[in-house]
């Protein structure tokens, strides 16, 4: 294969020359392998990793999050800032151009948001733009009247319909990608292969489910200068061939998602390095307040006392995940390990026993744990069995596990078929609120019937607070309430892992909680 690739690479090099400037970009193309899938290249039609990953490379957003940081910096904008908690003013960089040569102006920016909201694609992410959406007609959402103002070609002013300190972060997400108003239709998605943007790369070829070819965008003038002229992204339907491919050097980087066993084995391969960065994936157990067991605080707290997160991480995931003690992951401003403070780092069976005794609850308590076998990967069942084992070993519980395919699972957990059920979460944007509002307000998106007026009030307050320190205080307070009320039990945070050939550089730096694989920063040597 090495021989073949070299041979093809030779002719490919000639072809690669047809495109671009690349200004100092390397001719040495490389291949990224992933099991993520692309829903749509068009930013208005996607709400998933695979699509967003491509969009971060093809488009510019007003703001971006640089590798390893958490605060937004300007991207297509020269500057963006809050005038007050409901107003953001952005100035564009002068001379912006799309890869087809069209000028990028404030009108394109407004158009991008407008069409995203109005198309309201069922696979889209326009829900994130609620602060500039007029949803008085639920079935035909519109861009709010006067929500975006464009006084001149390089100025965009957002008027939010409520105080929203997370909106600056939303401006960094792929849903805020800026599209060309002369190319993208206003009322429907653009075909994947026709998508163009103003980002560091342009999409030279796209074969759905097979591969995407990115070539450096000659019109790109921003700070994200591409290091490689041509990059191939290969899509894998299963982790097993992805593992073989990286193991045997048929691809240069494997990013998302290899199994714990695969990673352990690849550590032994001298030709590749396994790079781990901090992740923001969150796995947690939700209490259903609608069941006899779930509605009793003493039981919820007792389980929080008993759960052995280190054992879960070690036994079910080979140590590839990090135990977590709060609803807000570490690294997010405002994070405190609230569960560790309240329940200790180590399991405390005696405390659990005492809690149940004080509440006059007869033991052993029959409890049903729910999991779904495929949606969150094959190791989910191991975590469920591990936790059930931990509960049973105390003699306080009679735990049994039940499973359902993802589809049924969703209805079942909402209906109260399980007392405690496992779910996973990836953030839409890097802000602590993304771990709070969706989870805690009136039963959360998962409908666990938890409702606490204090929490709701604090959420509103935190969203309207532009002072960083004051906001962190509120977020800390919320985490403490979660540890006390236990609407859910945090289990672990995932890592952002990539396996790369030894001749690749720049991989480790991009592995951060944003899960943006910044292709432009990576190059292959030799």
């Amino acid at each position, binding site marked *: 294969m090495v021989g073949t690739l070299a041979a093809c690479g030779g002719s490919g090099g000639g072809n690669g020359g047809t495109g671009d400037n690349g200004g100092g970009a390397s001719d040495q193309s490389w291949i990224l392998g992933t099991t993520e899938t692309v829903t749509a290249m068009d930013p208005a039609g996607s709400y998933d990793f695979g699509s967003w990953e491509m969009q971060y490379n093809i488009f510019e957003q007003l703001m971006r999050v640089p590798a390893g940081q958490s605060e937004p910096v300007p991207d297509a904008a020269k500057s963006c800032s809050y005038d007050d908690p409901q107003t953001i003013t952005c100035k564009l960089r002068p001379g912006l151009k799309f890869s087809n040569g069209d000028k990028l102006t404030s009108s394109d920016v407004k158009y991008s948001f407008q069409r995203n909201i109005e198309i309201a694609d069922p696979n889209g992410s326009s829900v994130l733009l609620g602060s500039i959406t007029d949803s008085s007609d639920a079935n035909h959402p519109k861009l709010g009247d006067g929500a975006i103002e464009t006084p001149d070609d390089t100025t965009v002013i957002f008027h939010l319909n409520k105080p929203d300190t997370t909106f600056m972060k939303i401006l960094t997400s792929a849903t805020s990608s800026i599209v060309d108003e002369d190319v993208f239709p206003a009322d429907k998605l653009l075909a994947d292969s026709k998508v163009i943007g103003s980002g560091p790369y342009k999409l030279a070829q796209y074969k759905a489910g097979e591969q995407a070819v990115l070539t450096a965008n000659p019109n790109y003038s921003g700070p994200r200068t591409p290091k490689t002229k041509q990059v191939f992204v290969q899509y894998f339907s299963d982790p*097993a061939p992805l593992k073989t491919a990286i193991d045997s050097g048929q691809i240069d980087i494997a990013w998302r998602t290899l199994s714990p066993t695969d990673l352990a*084995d690849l550590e032994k391969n001298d030709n590749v390095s396994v790079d781990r960065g901090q992740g923001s994936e969150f796995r947690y157990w939700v209490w259903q307040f609608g069941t006899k067991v779930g509605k009793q605080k003493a039981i919820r707290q007792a389980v929080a006392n008993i759960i052995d997160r280190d054992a879960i991480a070690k036994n079910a995931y080979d140590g590839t995940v990090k135990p977590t003690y709060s609803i807000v992951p570490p690294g997010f401003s405002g994070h405190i390990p609230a569960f560790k403070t309240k329940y200790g780092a180590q399991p405390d069976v005696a405390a659990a026993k005492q809690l149940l005794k004080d509440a006059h609850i007869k033991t052993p308590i029959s409890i049903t744990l729910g999991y779904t076998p495929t949606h969150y990967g094959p190791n989910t069942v191991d975590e469920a069995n591990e936790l059930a084992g931990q509960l049973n070993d105390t003699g306080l519980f009679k735990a049994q596990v039940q499973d359902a395919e993802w589809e049924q699972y969703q209805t079942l957990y909402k209906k109260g078929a399980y007392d405690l059920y496992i779910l996973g979460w990836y953030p839409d944007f890097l802000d602590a609120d993304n771990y709070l509002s969706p989870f805690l307000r009136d039963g959360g998106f998962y409908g666990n019937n938890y409702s606490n007026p204090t929490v709701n009030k604090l959420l509103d307050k935190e969203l309207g607070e532009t002072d960083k320190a004051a906001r962190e205080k509120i977020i800390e307070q919320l985490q403490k309430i979660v540890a006390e009320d236990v609407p859910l039990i945090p289990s672990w945070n995932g890592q952002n892992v990539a396996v790369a050939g030894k001749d690749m550089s720049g991989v480790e730096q991009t592995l951060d909680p944003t899960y943006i694989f910044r292709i432009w920063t990576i190059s292959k040597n030799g």
Partner: protein
Amino acid sequence: MFKTLTSPIRNTSGMARWILLAGLIITAAFVIMAIFAPWIAPYGFAQNSSDGMRFPKMGPPSAAHPLGTNDQFFDILSRVIWGARTEVTVVVLSVLFAVSVGMPLGLLSGFLGGWADRLMVFVMDVLYSFPSLLLAIVFAFLLRGPLGGGTFAAALALTAIYIPQYFRVVRSTTASAREATYVEAARAIGARNGTIMGRYLFGNVIQSVPVIGTLNAADAISTLAALGFIGLGIQPTDAAEWGYDLSRALDDAQSGIWWTTLFPGLAIVLLVTGLTLVGEGLNETVNPTLRKRRFRKVRMPANEPTSALVEGEV
């Protein structure tokens, strides 16, 4: 009774007998494992510790765990033995269901002919035209709800695939046999439809059933494994299933951990092979045309012309 049971073996010779015997022994070994699993298996199928001691994770074969342990801390020997129970149950149930629905329909359809026949052929052909794995996947989805993710649901899901196969084969055998000389003869001497179907056609058609039966049994195991591979099979805490274990072990195999994938895989290959050998052996005994003719030369006997051409051996 014993004589009737062993007659297929006694009726064969040479390799046919060995094949049948080998198949029977392999299959019997698995059936014994299936029936006596609780007594033979050292541990439960979802047991990851004993006497409060955790089993090793992916431990290589050792005295305590002769076939090693897998990544779920389960004892592989126990999983293989309990797995036999699951597979045998699923196979027996699914083949039984499929035969009892597919064969009578095929017999009826082939014998009756006409519109009834066409309609049935039509429906069955449509069912048959679905890729069987897809059908199994969809049925597995459907049946998991009401029946849970266990053995019975899996068996029923597989049944749906095999009915059309029995129907097809039985029907076409019936349709051909209907025109055969001996059936014409029976009709000519005034035999009733029921008699013809029951005595002549059934006897003829039943011969092809063990062959498809074992083929399907084999196929059922493969399909079950395939469901496990795609992640829609029986869950590890519901029952031990080789396909599931195999799919979990695929990653290990690439990492040089051979015992987690070898033993469940071997179990699948062995049981499928055993079943197929039984089927082929049976086929040769039940189906006289496949038997080797001992007597090639035509002898002219004194009184009994019918025994002039003796097929097979006595």
